C-alpha cells in the first residue's frame, strides 16, 4: 500500500480550498473511472484522474500536488463531458495548476510553468503571442536551445510560417488599457488564492 493514513492526514482544508476555487462538488465523485477510461493523457500520469479526485477528497495534498497528473492534463474536456456526476474534472485540474503556480502549493513540473511564464509575459507586453520569441525563450530556459530547430524550425522559417517580429496592439490607448488590466488581474488572482477556509 503506497499511502498510510491517520486522522491527522485527512486535511480537509485542502479539499475545501479546491472545492471553493474550482466551484465543483468534489465530494460527489464516486470514482466510477469513466474519466480515467477516456483520458488521452492518463498513460503519462502518476495518478489517473479518478485517483486524483479520491486523494483530493481525502485531503492528501502532498500526493496530489507532488504528482504530475494535473500538469499532463491537456484540457480536452473528455472527462468533463462524460462524467455522470456532472463534475467539471478539467476545471479541477486547472485549479490544481493555478494553486501551484500562485505559490500556494508545490509546483511539481518543470516545463509548463516556464512556458506559462514566457507566454504571459509575451501576452502582457504585446497583447498577442509572439511565437518565435516564445519558442526561443522556452528552449533557452528549459536548457534545450536546439530542440526542434533542425529540421522543423528551419523549414517553418523557410515556408514563411514564423513571424520574425511580434505584433503589437496598434492603438496606444488600447495598449495602456491592456497593461492596466493585466496588473489588476494579477492583484485579484492573488486575493482569491490567499483567501483561506479557516
Amino acid at each position, binding site marked *: 500500500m503506497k499511502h498510510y493514513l491517520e486522522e491527522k492526514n485527512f486535511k480537509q482544508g485542502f479539499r475545501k480550498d479546491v472545492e471553493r476555487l474550482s466551484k465543483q462538488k468534489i465530494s460527489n465523485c464516486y470514482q466510477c473511472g469513466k474519466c480515467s477510461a477516456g483520458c488521452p493523457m*492518463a498513460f503519462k500520469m502518476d495518478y489517473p484522474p479518478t485517483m486524483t479526485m479520491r486523494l483530493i477528497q481525502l485531503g492528501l495534498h502532498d500526493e496530489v500536488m507532488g504528482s504530475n497528473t494535473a500538469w499532463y492534463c491537456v484540457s480536452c474536456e473528455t472527462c468533463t463531458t462524460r462524467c455522470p456526476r456532472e463534475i467539471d474534472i478539467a476545471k479541477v485540474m486547472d485549479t490544481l495548476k493555478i494553486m501551484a503556480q500562485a505559490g500556494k502549493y508545490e509546483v511539481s513540473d518543470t516545463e509548463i510553468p516556464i512556458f506559462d511564464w514566457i507566454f504571459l509575459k509575451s501576452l502582457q507586453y504585446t497583447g498577442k503571442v509572439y511565437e518565435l520569441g516564445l519558442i526561443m525563450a522556452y528552449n533557452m530556459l528549459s536548457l534545450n536551445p536546439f530542440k526542434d530547430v533542425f529540421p522543423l524550425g528551419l523549414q517553418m522559417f523557410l515556408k514563411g510560417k514564423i513571424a520574425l517580429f511580434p505584433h503589437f496592439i496598434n492603438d496606444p490607448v488600447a495598449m495602456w488599457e491592456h497593461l492596466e488590466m493585466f496588473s489588476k488581474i494579477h492583484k485579484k488572482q492573488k486575493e482569491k488564492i490567499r483567501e483561506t477556509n479557516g
Partner: protein
Amino acid sequence: MARIGVFVCHCGTNIAGVVDVKRVAEYALTLPGVKFATDYKYMCSDPGQNAIIEAVKEHKLDRIVVTACSPRMHEGTFRKAAERSGINQYMSEMANIREHDSWVHGDDKEAATLKAMKLMEMSVAKVRRAEALSKMYATVEKRALVIGGGIAGIQAALDIAEAGHKVVIVEKEPSIGGRMAQLDKTFPTLDCSACILTPKMVAASQHPNIELRVYSEVVEVNGYVGNFDIKIKKKASSVDNKKCIGCGVCTQKCPSKRAQSEFDEKIAPRKAIYTPFPQAVPNKPVLDRASCTFFLTGKCKICEKVCPTQAIDYNQQDEIVTEKFGAVVLATGFDIFDSNVYGEYGYGEYKDVVTSLQFERLINSSGPTGGHVVRLSDKKEPKNLVWIQCVGSRDESKGRPYCSRVCCMYTAKQAMLMKDHYPEVNCYVFYIDIRSAGKNYEEFVQKAQNEYGVIYLRGRVSKIYEKKDKLIVRGADTLSGSQVEIEADMVVLANGLEPRKDAKSLAQIFHVSYDQYGFFNELHPKLAPVETSISGVFVAGACQACKDIPDTVAQAGAAAAKVLGLFSKEKMEVEPLIAKVDPLVCSGCETCYNVCPYSAIEMEDREVTRGNLRHVAKVLESVCKGCGACVGACYSKAVDLKGFSERQIHDQIDTVTL
C-alpha cells in the same frame, strides 16, 4: 350550554416533570363552560379512563378535553372512553402537552406550564363548538380491476380470484405475460422464465373468476373507492375472437415486411397480423393496421382469404365499455432506459451494441436466432463480449441518479449463460459496484466470477468506437489503476429500468401521484408500500419502484391482500371528519372541485329549494380525507369541515391572540 370536563395527565414524569399539571387543571376551572377539571398520573390506563367515565356521569358532562400526549397515540382510546361514558365520541378533544410541550421545553418549566395552559384553553374553545357526528358507510362493488398483465398483475389477480372475487385484467399488448415472457432464464435460480410464467398465465386465463381483456386500455375513470366507473377501450384487432381458433395460418401467409417485432426488441421482423410469441395467452392474433398492406394501400386481404373460420373483420372498430369496479391494482411494469442518449456507446450506430433485453431475445431459444448468440451485423459468433453496467442508472447527467437494483444480477446471469453455451468465449463486465442484496444473490455473482471465469473490471466505459469489424471498448479498472482497452465483437448495455412512457398519463387518469421519473407514489415509503393517496387504488411491481421478480410477486400479494380487506366488508366505514357543503350557500363556482387533491368533490345539479335546480358541489364521503383545502378555497364559506369547523379554528386562534 356546554358542560366541559378537562382531564390533565401527568404521564408519569413525562409531563409532570416539566409542567405544573395541577395549575393547568385549576386554570381550566376558570374557563367558561368547564364544569369539572382534574389531573391524574396515567389518563390512558384503565383507572384513568374509568375516572373520565365516572366524572362524565357524575357531573353530567357532555364533552371532554384530555390534556395529555399526542392524539396519534391515544385519540382512539379517549374517544372510546367517551362513548362508553355515554357521550358522542366526536365530542372528545385532546390537547398535546407532551410532544408539543413538556418534551421540547424541558429547560423552562414556567414557560412550559403557561404554554400547557394555553393549549388546554384552545382545546376547550374548540370542543365548546363541537358537534355530535356519526360514522358513515359506503357500499363496495366486489370486483377488482388489475391494469397490467405481467407477473405482478397476474399474481395479484390470482390471489384476489382465489378468495372468491371477480377480477378483470386489462393488458395493452395482445397477450399477457409482460417482461418475464421476454426473458430467457431468471436469477438466482436460472429457472427458465417462460416455464415458470406460463402456468400462471394459463391459470389466470382459466380461472372462473378472472376475465382477460387484452389489447385494451383504460381511458377514463370516475367515482371513488368501492364505486369506480371505469371506461375500458378494447382496440380493434380486426379478428373476431369468438370465431378464431388460433391456427396461425393468417400469420404464416401475411406478406407484410414493414414492422419490427416489439416483443423481440426490434431485432427481428414480424407480420402485420401476429401473435407476439408462441405461448401467447390468449392465443389469438391481432392485426396492426399501421403496418398492414391492406390498410395502407387498399390491396391484399390475404388473411381474410385463408382464414378457415372467416374470423377476419376489417371493419371492426375500437370498443369502449364502462364498468363498475370496487378496487384497482396498477401493475404496469417498466421500460428500459433509452441507450441512444449515450452517444459515446454508439447504440443505434454500431449494430453490435445491443441492449440487455435484446441480448435476452438472442440467447432465448425461442427467440429470433433460436438461442444462438450472433452479431447483429454479420451473423457471426462473437468471441469477446463486453457488458457495461449502469447504463442509465446512477447517472445524474442523464437524469437517472437512482440505482435500478436488478442490473448487476441480470448481467451476471447473462454472462454465465453465455459462458454456459459457449465456454471458449471471453466475457468482460465493467461495473462500478455490485449490488446483490437478495437471498442467494451474492453467491450467484461470485459464481460468475469464480466458477465461470467472467472477468469483472471496476470502472465505467468511456467510449466505444468501431475499427473494421470490431468494437474497441475503452474503459478503466480503478482497482488496479489501469486504462483497459478491449476489442469486443459485441457489447451488451445493462440498461436501467424506468416506468413505461404512458405510466404518467395513466396516473393522471387515476389522480395518482408520481415522482419525477414517473414511478407511482406509494402512500408511505416504509409503512404503506402498496397503497396510493387515492383510496381503492393500489400499486404492485416495477411501476412503483425498480425491483426483481421475488419482490414483485410479494408486493402483488400484498396489494391483493389490501383489496381483499376492502372487499371483506359489506359496507365500508368512513370517518365523519370530512367536508360538508351547504348547498343553500354554494354558488357552484367549482373552486373546491378544482382544488381538491383527492378528487373528492363532485358537481351536481340539485333541487336545492323547491323548483330551483342549482349547480352545486357535493362531497364524496368515502373519498374525502378532510384536508380542508376546499374550506380554505371557498369564496362563499359554503363548505366546512366536520370536527374542524371554521368557527372552531377561529375560536382557537382567538384564544391565543386576544
